[in-house]
């Protein structure tokens, strides 16, 4: 094991850029994805039938195809067609449309929206009717019931599942290294190409990911605890095999 390359500021720069980009991508697509998820869930529960069916189909397609294929579809497939639309090259958003980060964030936002949308839909449906009826009895408006009662209760119910989704998002970030975005894996691959070390850079970022997963789990657990009225997860364990 040779980790002497770590002292080279050049490689440190690679890794730092990759690290920052990784976190940035998780933050952007996590936030936008959660917002999309709530919208998709509400569209399925309360939207008009055609819209609900459209969202249902969209969710099925996204959840039924590999994320890597979606990433290439948006980056290479859609991304190469965009310049053919007249006027796009001169528009203000053109620099954004050339940036791999944009396609990474777009793909991950859609993916988080589809997967988490199902989680939130289930949670919204499992909020007891009586609580919403109580809101109506107090004369709350439709919007007030949604953002004061229904949504907070649903999020509280599905927080542990959201933790899992957040970790899945973090672990899908290395995929963007395939569309030439500088994430941790891309950084490691550059180091590997230049130092001819096969394993060390990969093992290092594996370690970073394990640490990030632990930190993310800790942060989410903190949020779970701070959430008003959250029930502590059952932690009782029993051993059965072999009896």
């Amino acid at each position, binding site marked *: 094991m040779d980790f002497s390359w770590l002292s080279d500021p050049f490689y440190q720069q690679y890794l730092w850029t990759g690290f920052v980009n990784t976190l940035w991508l998780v933050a952007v697509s996590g936030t936008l994805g959660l917002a999309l998820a709530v919208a998709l869930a509400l569209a399925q529960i309360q939207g008009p039938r055609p819209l609900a069916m459209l969202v249902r189909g969209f969710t*099925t397609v996204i959840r039924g195809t590999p994320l890597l294929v979606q990433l290439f579809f948006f980056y290479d497939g859609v991304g190469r067609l965009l310049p053919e639309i007249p006027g796009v090259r001169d528009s203000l958003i053109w620099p954004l449309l050339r940036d791999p980060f944009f396609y990474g964030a777009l793909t991950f936002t859609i993916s988080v929206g589809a997967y988490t949308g199902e989680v939130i839909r289930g949670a919204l449906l499992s909020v007891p009717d009586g609580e919403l009826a109580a809101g109506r009895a107090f004369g709350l408006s439709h919007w007030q019931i949604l953002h004061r009662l229904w949504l907070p209760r649903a999020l509280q119910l599905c927080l542990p599942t959201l933790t899992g989704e957040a970790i899945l998002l973090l672990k899908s970030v290395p995929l963007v290294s395939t569309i030439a975005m500088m994430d941790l894996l891309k950084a490691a691959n550059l180091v590997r190409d230049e130092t001819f070390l096969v394993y060390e850079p990969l093992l290092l970022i594996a370690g970073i990911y*394990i640490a990030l997963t632990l930190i993310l789990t800790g942060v989410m657990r903190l949020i779970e605890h701070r959430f008003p009225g959250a029930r502590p997860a059952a932690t009782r364990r029993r*051993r059965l095999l072999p009896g």
Partner: protein
Amino acid sequence: MSSYQNAGLLDWAAPILHGALVTLEIALLAYAIGLALGLLGAGTRLSAWPPLRALGTLYSTLVRAVPELLLIILLYYAGTQALNALLNALGDDTHVEIGGFVCAVGVLAFVQGAYMTEVFRGAILAIPRGQLEAADAYGFTRWTRFHRIVVPAMLPNALPGMSNLWLILVKDTALISVVGFEELFFTAQQAAASTRDYFVFYAAAGALYLVMTLGSNALFARAERHVRRGQPGL
């Protein structure tokens, strides 16, 4: 223009369908091995002997904390080297080159086993204790208890998780294309690059994956009805 595109898609139809077949083969084999690894893993995690329990926990925790793509790249290179080192240590000087297929299956099965460990562990823990005690009271051997009581009783609990993992596995096979193994998505990438028709070929690849996942959803729904037979409806 459009006739040229159609010709492109038709020319590539056979290789892409063959790629889809390879993808299915990899997924099925890796799933079978993953199931076995998962049962072993759950066995070690529930073992009464602390070192064995620690080993099982280490396996499932570490593998699940590292991104699949990273693991696949790491194990892809490490697998060949480890096998050669092992053969050399055994006094065999031949240098073996593991085929991409074996490597792909091995890597995916190793990852799958870690997730399967957790599914089986949860499902086994959910079996009412009395059922296992009843088996013991009847003097069942451990093997009889395992395959007559534990497996049938845990399957209804495990099947939703198993079906989820199968879907994840089918989608994860696409990651193998990153290390240059010719499965469905790698073939689609080649087709897209040679015809410059990225949109069409990536959409086609996506559609094929969708057919596979939707098809297996139907199969798993049937399997779930079967293992839940005799249980009150949910």
